[in-house]
């Protein structure tokens, strides 16, 4: 029997600053983003990123939150009790037992994007695991207009995972492979994940290569997201957060459709929510101690 490979699986990892010493810090604030597919925890020491983790969400939010925060604190000697203020965000935010406060992920993503890509960011697109949010924000990272599409998983990370599995292609290769086609195929007509899956199967049966199916699916997804952005308007500068930001198959097609380049940073696009939550925690901590 062939070995079962999980093509949808992306790499989980943790990171902490190799030189910073958290014991010298005064303000230890954490943000926990328990999303529908991935969970992140990020710890700020005096307003600087000290450690973070990016893991897969389990079926239980408190467990996922614990796993994420323990992942971020791994090998640092830090304990949960050292954290002065913790903000929870994401789908599971109301179910994080050790969080001091829950803040919606829309506010957190805007704030995180503002930190990651600078105050010139006006439009933030969060392409998450199960929904898609278009956010317009001001120079302080405060939300001024937003739109969320969480009724349907089309145009999200979960849809990509399903496609990776169906075509037996590791999820990280999808973006690149979707450009290895002689000619850009027309987008798949259904954006619904379930219908797109049967449409993809039909296309393959009629002789399309896997790469062509990927290209068709990526452009359908990019088009769908651009419609969502159209409602709030895209203002320069534009930044994409969430896991899909790592997929050039979507990002480049979306940029082409919108006629605007997105800002790229050194940070992992998936930590934006947790970073924003941690920044709010830091602000609330400062407010409380004044």
């Amino acid at each position, binding site marked *: 029997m062939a070995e079962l490979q999980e093509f949808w699986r992306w790499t989980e990892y943790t990171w902490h600053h190799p030189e910073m010493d958290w014991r010298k810090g005064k303000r230890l604030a954490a943000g926990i983003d328990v999303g529908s597919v991935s969970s992140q925890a990020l710890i700020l020491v005096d307003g600087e990123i000290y450690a973070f983790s990016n893991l897969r969400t389990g079926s239980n939010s408190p467990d996922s939150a614990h796993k994420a925060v323990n992942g971020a604190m791994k090998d640092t000697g830090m304990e949960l009790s050292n954290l002065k203020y913790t903000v929870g965000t994401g789908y599971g935010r109301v179910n994080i037992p050790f969080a001091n*406060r829950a*803040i*919606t992920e*829309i*506010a957190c993503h805007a704030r995180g994007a503002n930190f990651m890509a600078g105050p010139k960011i006006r439009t933030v697109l969060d392409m998450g695991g199960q929904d898609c949010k278009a956010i317009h924000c001001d120079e302080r990272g*405060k*939300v*001024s*207009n*937003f*739109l*969320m*599409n*969480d*009724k*349907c998983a089309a145009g999200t990370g979960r849809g990509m995972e399903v496609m990776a599995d169906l075509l037996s292609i590791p999820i990280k290769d999808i973006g690149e492979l979707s450009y290895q086609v002689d000619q850009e195929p027309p987008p798949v007509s259904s954006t*619904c994940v379930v219908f797109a899956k049967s449409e993809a199967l039909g296309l393959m049966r009629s002789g399309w290569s896997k790469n062509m199916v990927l290209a068709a699916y990526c452009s359908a997804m990019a088009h769908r997201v651009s*419609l*969502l952005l159209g*409602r*709030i308007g895209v203002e320069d500068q534009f930044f994409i957060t969430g896991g899909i930001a790592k997929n050039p198959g979507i990002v480049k097609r979306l940029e082409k459709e919108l006629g605007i380049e997105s800002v790229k940073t050194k940070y992992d696009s998936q930590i934006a929510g947790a970073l924003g939550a941690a920044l*709010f925690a830091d*602000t*609330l901590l400062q407010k409380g101690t004044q």
Partner: protein
Amino acid sequence: MIANYGYKDGSGEFFIAIDTDKCNGCGDCVPVCPPRLLEMAADEYDPLSEKTVAAVREEERKKIKYTCAPCKPASGRGALPCVAACEPGAIAHSW
């Protein structure tokens, strides 16, 4: 801030947009809505502000097409109660 509550699906776009900068927190829109879709709550999209603004109740956000339907007959549609009740004009429907 403009908060768009609702969704977009195969049958169209269904959003109730509430402009929280215009909303004065009076709460007049809450009792006039027949299915009680609206509530007054802390502005959850601006966690650092302490203002109370109108919002669409969370459990209603994914079905407003149906919940709002009685106020939107196909013919002879009058002003929507929530929109009419809002003096500063902070509420708008997309459909």
